[in-house]
């Protein structure tokens, strides 16, 4: 199973903290997100991706606690037992 964790506005929007999905062979983060959106009735991907399907500036997506920006971005592979964390843009001080 792949565990997806929802944070910030997405958690508020979806009213849930996480979701588990079965892994698909040769799937990457971008494909996982699209599959996730098809499975969840409430639209949430617009909080993470722009109209071209690229991460909005400030979006943080982690796979096993590593930012996909420094891996293979949306093409980062995901596999069974991976943990994917989704953070829409936020900031602090």
């Amino acid at each position, binding site marked *: 199973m792949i565990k997806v964790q929802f*944070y*910030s*506005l997405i*958690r*508020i929007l979806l009213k849930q*903290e996480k979701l588990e999905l079965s892994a698909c062979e040769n799937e990457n983060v971008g494909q996982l997100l699209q599959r996730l959106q098809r499975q969840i009735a409430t639209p949430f991907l617009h*909080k993470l991706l722009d109209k071209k399907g690229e991460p*909005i*500036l*400030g*979006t*943080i997506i*982690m796979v*096993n*606690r*590593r*930012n996909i*920006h*420094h891996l293979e971005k949306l093409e980062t592979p995901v596999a069974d037992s991976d943990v994917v*964390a989704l*953070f*829409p*843009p*936020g*900031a*602090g*001080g």
Partner: protein
Amino acid sequence: MSRFSLKGWSGKLLRVDLTAGTCTDEVLNEQWAKEYLGGRGLGTKYFTEEVAADVDPFSAENKLILAAGPLTGTYGAANGRYMVITKSPLTGTIASSNSGGYFPCELRYAGYDMVIFEGKAEYPSYLQIHNDKAQLVGAVHLWGKSTKETEDQILAEFHGDAKIACIGQAGENLVSFAAIINDKHRAAGRTGIGAVMGSKNLKAIAVRGTGGVKIADPVAYREAALDSYALLKANPVSGEGLPALGTPVLVNVINQMGALPTNNFQKDTFDGAEAISGEALASTYLKRNKGCMGCVIGCGRVTGLAGSRFDGDGEGPEYETLFSLGSACGVDDLAAITKANYICNEYGMDTITIGTTIACAMELAEKGLVTEEEIGMPLSFGDADAMVKLVEMAGKREGFGEKLAMGSYRMAESFGAPELSMSVKKLEFPAYDGRGIQGIGLNYATSNRGACHVRGYMISPEVLGLPEKLDPQATEDKAVWTKIFQDFTATVDSSGVCLFTTFAIGAPQFANFLTAATGAEFTEATIMEIGERIYNMERVFNLKAGVDPSQDTLPKRLLEEPISDGPLKGEVAKLGEMLPEYYQERGWSTEGIPTDERLQTLGLV
């Protein structure tokens, strides 16, 4: 008095001689205003011209300057900020601490850009300003009262619509990290400026102003404001993220990446992070968000503890507090952290320094360097009740609170273990471990007031990816980025605008605002040059004060002890790879001394 010809600034400062009990208006120095703007820059210019660098922070010769910026109180973007400048009793460096709310704007509406306090009052006093009338009045009846009680009493006896900045018992007791609290819940928090105020027997400043801010080109200013509003609202951080979850949203982000300092930086992931996160706060004690005057972001957290084992209501905690009183102490009790935050606001204390000082005491206890008898209670990481109790004891300087009131460095030094203080230049770290995020480590080491994140918020590019994503573990180019962030921040801090606007607007917007407001011409280039001038001015003061470049460093733990857990396990701060390049970028000598040539270029000699 000579004339001040520009708009934007009020063009007037109030000089208060506490020893003599007099209040005198002065025309603002117009040339300095153009070169240093206001707030942090202009306040520090006046301070360094008038006060010797070797001054004892608690002596009558030290001065305390409250300075708004030329944009404070206008409807520009989030323009409710001011700065307090003095010499810090905690660090021995220049101290300048920022706060926002309604008080800074009211000062402008009364007609003042700045108030300079000098000398020392014979007995507790406070300053009343009602437009152009200013007077010192007795505050014996307020001494010993909390910031809330003080504000309520002044509202009742002076003017119901006054805006107030004051100290609590911590400032009176010269706690070395005492804050000045305005509008009941907003803190000019860091570096102990509240203790300097207390040393002067000054309890509060109460202002009622009914004027406005004159704008040189109202049409251009309106355009600049509408442009910025649009950018701030469209930006997902300032338009949505910060209003909804505030700064606490970072608890989970920084914990996930493995850079959330835990148990006094002995770990960098916290099992209790979820319990003290912004998401947890939003679903428990958060009542609503709140902004400073005219702010379209509204990052403030209005909270209440009904239904918990504590009582009270107020504002906060912010992300920094959730770290300092939370993960740094191993405490995962959100109600206890919130309660301790309220106590800090009421006593007037910096939540970052008190939390990290308690965390340091917990490690001293863990290592057997301080006994249960000395503390007066058992103390270990994760003990929420002890944390809350110690916060109050520090404010009162009661029992072990006497040690805590020294700040972590002096406290740890007194137990023979200064290396357990997680600080730079005796100012404690905020909520990001410089071992896992290299640029913020460089910023901590070179910040002019010690380990401060908001002197150069490298978290923005290194973690949040704003304005572009940098690799947090890389050291390449971090010197260049850090210098840019430090210089631009110095300008923002001098304008009267909130730093959080810079997630959406940049130097071009600031140039437009300042040009339209003042009638003087500002460009992107002058915005950055002003910031660099301010940064070098502060550096020169620190050098004269004896804070030499050997202090541009990090604690041994960050330089030599690798992160022990999480995804960044094994990382150390690679300061040596960045510092020489940083000095070079700044045009300083290889020893970190600003060269005459650079100072001449910046108009500092």
